[in-house]
């Protein structure tokens, strides 16, 4: 299951031969160098050439794949020096360059590439963190690539290398298959076990100085050992090594290059004039999918040339992209045009790219933008299967016009997500949403309390909190009391309501008050999990009880007294024990709340009791008589 490019290992030859010069002098004497004493040309060693080429390969891989694509370095002289492991912390250029500093230039001594190649194949058998994390999936394919930069005398030596690689793989696989049953029988092996290598792609790059002759020839990819190993041999001059690896990285990671052409830039020396530059960028091959229709297979292998479309005032960023974005990295990080383009994008601008057409007419094809400090390319245009959606207004719920959109907006603001640290953040977010939506009518016409705005606001806002402080309970109680007072004055805050809900008649008002109290109870009851919430609920129930006996002036006084005297320990609160059998803390839904609410004592009393007067009323007093008479 793991792709070949999940693990790559570079083997760098650090033997004395690589200390020789590449014979490719770098000329420092350029025309611009006015007045300076010329620096004589210098040559890099083969070692320097191979290191810089390999490091550049890594830079591209790690810029484009911050995770999941691992590269290791093995420096080979008389022993194999491992510069890094598969650990994520060691998969970066800084770690690698520090390691290379310690290796230093080529020293005299024996040894050669063989040590490194064997070590590299052993490294391939070590599981990567991703592979360790799924030890139960035995069926995954452990595949990888070894890129060996060396210099052999002739094809026979290369053949020798291949044989050694083959033997090593056979031995490792034998060991791994033997070790595997043992490790599975134990619970979880803590020691890094050896994995079977299912496939290994070995690229041997034979490096020579500029004018040296070599008897090694290019060999195309051939499979040996029953398709377990694929070997190819590439001969390269040291000076061309960087280009070679820059080209090889593309198929290895399914990448493609785009040349952004016609980027207007101020001249370095002369800021008043501007010239057009080209910058080559590297990204996933998928980014070019949209262009394939108009490409021949040969063109698909070349760098696609797209023209810079000078951005205008309002920019959409990458938002016009229809799907994926792919990471981008410049092919030549050190060039000034690249740096200018990168900075332009990192500063928050975006660029549209167009396909250059001869006949005129423009069509935007891609967009370049930075997000979160990384550069991305996205494809523009094209049809999507979700084009032309059905109108929401014709679907379910589409004709309802009084959704509480503003209030839901407020709820969204209260439930904004933030980058946190540590586990369980998602769970907390969902729990909070759950709390905030416990009692949440969808439409304006289905609620009164949420339409009363400032009158009820502190309560509706506070009650959704996980816990309430005593002060907050106090605030809520004051809200309830002010409602009570309002009701007693036969007022209703109608100004807050939408016009169609404002009733004039007193009968309607009574109903409205009933609904307000019922809704309030439903709201508070839905949150009655914490002690303070329960206290609030008791206050509310007291108020409601009063609401149903509105004519009884005396009871109102007692309610007010009861609810103001001791807010922290209301009557019957016990010590917050929830198991005292009262239905106050039993979670109930709104319907229960409505049905269970005390009703006005309008119903005539039980006939039996009326007959019994002060005595105990007996039930079914005729039952016995009926039985007797029937016999």
């Amino acid at each position, binding site marked *: 299951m793991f792709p070949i490019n999940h693990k790559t290992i570079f083997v760098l030859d650090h033997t004395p031969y690589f200390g020789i010069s590449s014979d490719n002098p770098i000329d420092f004497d350029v025309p611009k160098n006015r007045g300076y004493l010329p620096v004589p040309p210098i040559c890099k060693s083969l070692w320097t050439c191979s290191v810089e080429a390999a490091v550049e390969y890594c830079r591209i891989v790690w810029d484009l794949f911050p995770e999941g694509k691992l590269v290791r370095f093995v420096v080979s002289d008389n022993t194999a020096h491992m510069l890094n492991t598969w650990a994520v912390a060691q998969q970066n250029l800084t770690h690698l360059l520090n390691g290379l500093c310690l290796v230093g230039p080529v020293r005299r001594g024996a040894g050669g590439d063989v040590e490194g190649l064997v070590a590299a194949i052993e490294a391939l058998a070590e599981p990567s963190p991703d592979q360790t994390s799924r030890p139960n999936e035995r069926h995954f394919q452990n595949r990888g690539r070894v890129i060996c930069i060396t210099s052999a005398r002739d094809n026979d030596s290369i053949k020798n290398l291949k044989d050694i690689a083959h033997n090593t793989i056979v031995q490792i696989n034998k060991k791994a298959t033997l070790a595997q049953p043992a490790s599975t029988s134990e619970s979880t092996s803590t020691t890094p076990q050896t994995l079977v290598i299912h496939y290994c792609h070995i690229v041997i790059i034979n490096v020579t100085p500029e004018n040296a002759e070599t008897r090694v020839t290019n060999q195309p990819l051939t499979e040996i050992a029953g398709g377990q190993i694929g070997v190819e041999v590439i001969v390269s001059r040291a000076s061309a090594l960087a280009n070679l690896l820059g080209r090889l990285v593309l198929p290895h990671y399914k990448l493609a290059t785009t040349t952004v052409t016609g980027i207007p830039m101020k001249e370095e020396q002369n800021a008043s004039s501007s010239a057009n530059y080209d910058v080559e960028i590297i990204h996933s091959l998928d980014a070019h999918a949209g262009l394939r229709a108009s490409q021949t297979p040969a063109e698909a292998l070349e760098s696609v040339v797209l023209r810079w479309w000078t951005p205008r005032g309002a920019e959409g960023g990458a938002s016009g992209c229809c799907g994926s974005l792919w990471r981008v990295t410049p092919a030549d990080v050190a060039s000034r045009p690249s740096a200018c383009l990168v900075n332009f994008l990192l500063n928050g601008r975006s660029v549209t790219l167009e396909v250059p057409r001869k006949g005129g007419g423009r069509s935007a094809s891609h967009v370049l933008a930075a997000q979160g400090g990384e550069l991305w390319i996205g494809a523009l245009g094209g049809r999507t299967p979700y084009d032309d959606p059905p109108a929401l207004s014709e679907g379910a719920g589409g004709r309802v016009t009084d959704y509480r959109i503003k209030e839901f907006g407020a709820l969204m603001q209260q439930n904004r997500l933030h*980058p946190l640290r540590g586990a369980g953040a998602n769970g907390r977010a969902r729990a909070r949403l759950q709390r905030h939506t416990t009692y949440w009518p969808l439409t304006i016409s289905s609620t009164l309390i949420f339409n009363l705005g400032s009158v009820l606001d502190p309560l509706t806002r506070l009650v959704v909190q996980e816990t309430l402080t005593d002060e907050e309970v106090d605030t809520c109680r004051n809200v309830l009391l002010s409602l009570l007072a309002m009701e007693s004055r036969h007022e209703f805050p109608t100004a807050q309501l939408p016009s169609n809900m404002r009733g004039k008649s007193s009968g309607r008002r009574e109903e409205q008050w009933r609904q307000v109290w019922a809704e309030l109870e439903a709201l508070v009851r839905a949150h009655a999990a914490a002690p303070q919430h329960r206290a609030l609920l008791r206050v509310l129930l007291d108020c409601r009880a009063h609401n149903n006996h509105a004519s009884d002036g005396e009871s109102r006084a007692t309610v007010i007294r009861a609810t103001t005297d001791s807010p922290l320990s209301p009557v019957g609160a016990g010590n917050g024990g929830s198991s005292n059998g009262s239905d106050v803390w039993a979670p109930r839904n709104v319907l229960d709340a409505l049905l269970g609410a005390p009703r006005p004592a309008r119903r005539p009393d039980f006939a039996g009791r009326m007959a019994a007067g002060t005595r105990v009323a007996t039930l079914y007093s005729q039952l016995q008589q009926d039985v007797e008479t029937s016999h």
Partner: protein
Amino acid sequence: MPTVILLDVSLSMSRPVPTSDTTETHTRHTIATAAVNTFLDYLSVHAKLEYVALVTFSSVYEVSVPFTRDFDSIRSKLLVLEEGDKTCIDTALLGVNQLVLNEWGGCQTPVQIILITDGSSGVGAIGRNRMVHALPLPPSYPAKIHVLPIVSPHESSLQHAMPLYQKIVDLANNTTTNSNGNLSRGSIYCPDQLTVPGVITAITRLCEQHYQEFWCTLKCGQLDARVQLFPAPQTISLEELSATYTLANQIHVIGFLQQQELTTPIAISKHLVIPQPQAGANTGPRENYGSKTPTKEGSSTDGSATEEDMSDPSKVPNFCVLLHGALKVEGMAAVVLLGADWWGTLTASCEASRGRRSCLLLSVMKPGATAAPWLGALDQLGPAEEGTTPAETFPIRSWRSYSGGGSACAWARPHALLADVQKVLRHARKLPDKTQHLFKELNRLRRAAISLGFSELLTAIGNALERECTALPPNAPSECALQLAHAANALRDPRTALDIKHVLTPLGPNYNVTPMTH
């Protein structure tokens, strides 16, 4: 997924089908037409939004009806198709590739292709072999190919063609270019018998397996709505995670983000979220609480509408519509949990081109917590504590510098090395003002050179500085000469030149002071 019906119109399709029933005569072509009509009938009930194209082929291909949602245009076209010569599947597939890439290529939209042919591959054994190699497969877009051979299961030509069909189905799925995961495989649907009902059974089986509507529940805390996702999300298998992901039938909103914070999510697919009528049980007391209260019954305006509301789904409040409205008004997006370790976002999307018709769009992100790097780890998105502001804000910036970890690896191209050397020499000319710059630059250069084992460079620069020293004009401050000589020696000192721990520093003030007293 858009669908291409790839219909064989070769001469062999016009062969009459022997039947016991003499009242009707059928050819393979009319049976195929019946199959296509059945397919379109199924779609118009279950997937009205699907785009379908009709491509006919013999030795050449023709796009008879380009991608459309107007299935009737395909039905009427079926009646007037002209017959061609011989079956050439590879040409046909080439044509399909061209059509799909032109139409959907940019977005890597997955496409289903239904190949309807008559069970003879049009070539002999050798030709078949050659054709397998010539097949333009896998296509450069994600695709699923189904084959519906209009052939009696006992016919010998089918035995020969079967391996070819299997190869086509397998190869179509073999798309290695797509980094966004792979589709499930297509299949071959052989009818049990060569009759209209037999073929209709086969195509119905295909529809039921591959054109299912996708329903799920969108939940936001205690609020929920039943929704349809279109196009139906596909099971995703990711090579690098070696796991498959199938969308759960509940999508949970975990919270909200400002649209600017989200910017563009890296979506592997996008789906319309279409609200569906609530099941009767779902209109619980919470949703229509108000309508049950006496208040509304008393009012003349909407009291009578209550009964009607219940029967007309468009008048029953739906959470999905509310969410869409609120997201649009606030310019926000919702982050949803699609399954274990899998996230997506909901946005109100508005197409300017389509009469500003707006819809709720689900963007399915790549599975894994790192699918949107600028949001940080997605499993660590959470609510801010009440009254506190979180330490980090969006976007989470990455450490990437795009300079290649210093400049060490940039020297593969000579111009970069040249620029760095010139910078040192420029500073060397402007001593003593640029002393600090010179040494800073020298240390950077040294670090890069040491990691590359490029000792030649250090020696060369040492020599160059020494020569600068000798070429100083007579009126230059003596400090210049001292600093240059110091730097040149340090670069060439065999004991320390290649020691990374050793840092070059300018000569201290006491050295500077001494020459001044002369």
